[in-house]
């Protein structure tokens, strides 16, 4: 039988794979991909907690749903910013974004 722990461990692996990518990547778009991994891990946790601990409830379910909508908005804005940065600087790796420093 599948337990809550198994799903939590899968999502923890996903989360820390995302953190590893966030720390090592240089391209901003690759960093955004890692952030997507982390956000997905949290969504999976919300749904799993709701399903296993409160089978009649719906709070985690709706939290995951709204989280997906907000993530979509976030990545759309981030991609727009990166395309604009590419137009200005012709490079989107984090080492070259020194103009954004204050």
């Amino acid at each position, binding site marked *: *039988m*599948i337990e*809550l*722990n*198994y*799903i*939590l*461990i*899968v999502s*923890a*692996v*996903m*989360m*820390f*794979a995302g*953190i*590893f*990518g966030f*720390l*090592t*990547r*240089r*391209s901003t*778009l*690759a960093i*955004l*991909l*890692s952030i*997507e*991994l982390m956000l*997905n891990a949290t*969504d*999976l946790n919300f*749904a*799993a907690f709701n*399903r*296993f*601990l*409160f*089978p*009649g409830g*719906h709070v985690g*379910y*709706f939290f995951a*749903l*709204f989280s*997906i*909508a*907000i993530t*979509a*908005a976030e*990545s*759309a*804005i981030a*991609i*727009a910013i990166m*395309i*604009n940065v*590419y137009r200005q600087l012709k490079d989107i790796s984090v*080492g070259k974004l020194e103009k954004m420093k204050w």
Partner: protein
Amino acid sequence: MDSYNIMFVILAVLIVCASFATVLAKSVLRAAAYLFFALLGVAGMYFLMGYTFLGSVQVMVYCGGIVVLYVFAILLTRGAKDKLSENTKQKIFASALLSLTGLGAFVYAILKANLLHENLFRPEPLYAPSEEATISINTIGRHMLSTDVNGYLLPFEAVSVLLLACIVAALVIARKR
């Protein structure tokens, strides 16, 4: 071992392998392709838990929308040629050590916590979920647009305003000057 367990193992292996491939792939375009499979695996998990609507939203928004958006952005910014990093070996090793330590701490905490035992509600087996455990479209619609204690009308409207602001902002930021 029934079909639910087999499906869970397949999805878990898919998610873990695709996540590692996403952060280790040499080209960013490949990383986006691997991310697609990780997201599909998560959608499969939702289906396995009986949350069919959430799984469909995941497939539509993430796999159909966001990944395609990323692929377009990578191709537009010549990011496909980007390498994993110009980091030193030492930096990569430190990051890997940090991630593994965190993962170990998390897994230890999860296994120690015994979440199901101190729980007021009776845990239900994952297979053959009851009518109340899997949320129907009818219930989702009622909760989404009701204003009582269990209603989500305010976040619903807030998200609609957020998406409108997002559309306008994306147009303003990315337009040609």
